[in-house]
């Protein structure tokens, strides 16, 4: 238990720090920008040339293939399923992984859930300990990016808080083919309407290369990631 021992730094007026920093910035910019700021920030931003690729070129099946390949490179398991067979596919995967209790984000389509073999737990203000005790978590996905193998979860649209996909050791994510885009700019554009929500981009299971640059899968997040693509 630590009592506050605030060091002897002279008390400063927080408001003056703000105005002083802003004044320093304005004076520095006046001194060092050769052409004065004639445009508004908005206009100047619009004029930034963006000659990079902002749209994909692949057909839908090639896009799905690329996404699958990238996920596999990260060490994620990938299955594809027709809409009617999603529940069977999920049941099969969970049986192989030996998962009995799965957390559920409330955005998951009830038709995707297998009828027996697995207990699904909705997040009714569960404690972190209760979340950890589950074998894994099942969620949907807002947008997926093929080139980078990225699952983008907007937590309000999948209707699950961020801790859901963090504390359990296993994550099963269902991706509908229509939500898969090819490039990062397309993905960010699809996320734009959700931009003030909490967003998590997941590209493979958590990993580190901090020890001798050896990639180790699974440090703090779920160590195993499976993805079902609904085609």
């Amino acid at each position, binding site marked *: 238990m630590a009592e506050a021992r605030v060091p002897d730094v002279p008390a400063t007026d927080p408001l003056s720090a703000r105005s002083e920093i802003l004044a320093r910035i304005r004076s520095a910019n006046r001194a060092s920008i050769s052409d004065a700021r004639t445009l508004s920030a908005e206009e100047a931003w619009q004029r930034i040339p963006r000659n990079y690729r902002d749209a994909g070129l692949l057909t839908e099946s090639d896009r799905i293939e690329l996404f699958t390949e990238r996920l596999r490179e990260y060490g994620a398991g990938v299955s594809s399923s027709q809409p009617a067979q999603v529940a069977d596919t999920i049941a099969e995967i969970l049986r192989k992984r030996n998962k009995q209790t799965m957390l559920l984000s409330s955005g998951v389509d009830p038709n995707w859930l297998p009828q027996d073999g697995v207990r699904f737990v909705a997040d009714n203000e569960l404690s972190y300990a209760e979340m950890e005790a589950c074998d894994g978590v099942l969620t949907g996905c807002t947008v997926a990016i093929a080139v980078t193998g990225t699952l983008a979860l907007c937590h309000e649209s999948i209707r699950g808080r961020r801790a859901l996909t963090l504390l359990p050791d296993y994550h099963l994510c269902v991706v509908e083919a229509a939500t898969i885009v090819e490039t990062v700019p397309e993905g960010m554009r699809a996320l734009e309407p959700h*931009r003030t929500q909490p967003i998590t981009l997941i590209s493979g299971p958590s990993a580190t*290369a*901090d020890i001798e640059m050896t990639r180790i899968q699974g440090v703090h997040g779920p160590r195993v990631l499976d993805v079902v693509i609904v085609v």
Partner: protein
Amino acid sequence: MAPTSERERQPLDFPSAALPLLHDAQLRGNVRHATDVIQGKRFRVVAEMPDWQSLREAGRQVRAHTLDYLDVYLEQFEQRCTAAGGHVHWARDTAEANRIVLQLAQNPTGRVIKIKSMTTEETGLNHALEAAGIQPIETDLAELIVQLGHDKPSHIVAPALHKNRHQVRELFVRAMNLPDLGDRPEDLAEAARVYLRQQFLSTPVAISGANFLIAETGGVCIVESEGNGRMCLTLPQKLISFAGIDKIIPRFSDLEVMLQLLPRSATGERMNPYNSVWTGVHPGDGPQEFHVVLLDNRRTEVLRDPEARETLQCIRCGACQNACPVYRQTGGHAYGSVYAGPIGAILTPQLALMERGQSLPYASTLCGACYEVCPVKINIPEILIHLRGRVVTGRPSYLRALHPEAMMMRGMQWMFLSETRFRLAQRFGRIAQRPWIRRSGWIERLPSILGGWTRTRDLRPLPQQSFREWFQARPSASTGSHSTLPPQVSSEPPEVPHG
């Protein structure tokens, strides 16, 4: 943890700091291996991007534009973040920043969990927290290794790349009391997972850095690999994010550029495992109290220098370090500062108003590899030269005039201004060099300050006849006789003496 700020107050001298490190074979091996691996991966994932140069240009322009309108965007960020339930604090210098955090970080457990943040290294926050009785727990694997070893980070992205698995195991065995721990990286990561999980669940306050502050939304973006960041951003009741005022980007959509440039440049991945974006406080999800501390610490002075302000475009990817032939030999510690490598060589002296780190602008061969890999096209070699100029002009005028290099340059200028003096100097040089020419025909060692040149290389002696002398002595074509080449030059063009 070593008292960072005190150690940094000592004057730095890159060559003296580098020398012992060059004799540490273990360290050099570790650094070489790590930088080779990251460079190789980066090269592969950059090569597969046909639009990489367009992305770099867009990245540069977005960052330069942000600096031009920094006041506008900071105010916008503050307004939007506050509207979303966050609190924004402004700090003129490191002491003010640490003071704000100390007041916010008080909690009954006496601990805070931390995500890797170069900015908190810059302010010496861990030391300040410890002095106030709060224990900071680093949760990034590499930072944990650095913290347990009472060490300092040596790389922006991989702070512990100077340690190998055996050294890490030793640290963990002692700190976590695990005598049977294996030394496979998997074992070590598992030990860290178990050790830190309890801390994540029981510590009510987290401190993070920030990769990007989004002016348009008041949101913050953090890019990471391990999931320790997500733990810190999600589980505690209170989150304090620490960021330099340069970390702003104008809009959410600018992430489409940054999130392509940063992971490929930093770790050679197409995308890093986890990116988090959040905006203020989200009811029912994550910390219910959120603070951002905006740090100036002389960044506004960097902004004032038209030739060097692009330093602030940096997005801290570390690609310049991996590419730098100097960094690859010495590792990060030789730079004696939080920011090492080429970016450290330009950022450190500027943040210290050229008072410290005067040797750092010289810690470069100016080969340009850093500029080539920089995802936001910071022209580091040009800024290095500019800062060398500032080092020289910053000397007191009496020292400037009497500095041996300055005197030599003035002498050279005087000599080159007259043909007679130039010819005389050549003749003098041919005689004066005689005692230094070895039997090999090379000059291997020169006296006094000229010796710096020959310490690492041999020098060709001045030829006995210069090109001009040969040209004038040559029988003219009109006499019909054959021209003769000077004896020592054979078929190669005669060497022109170096000025």
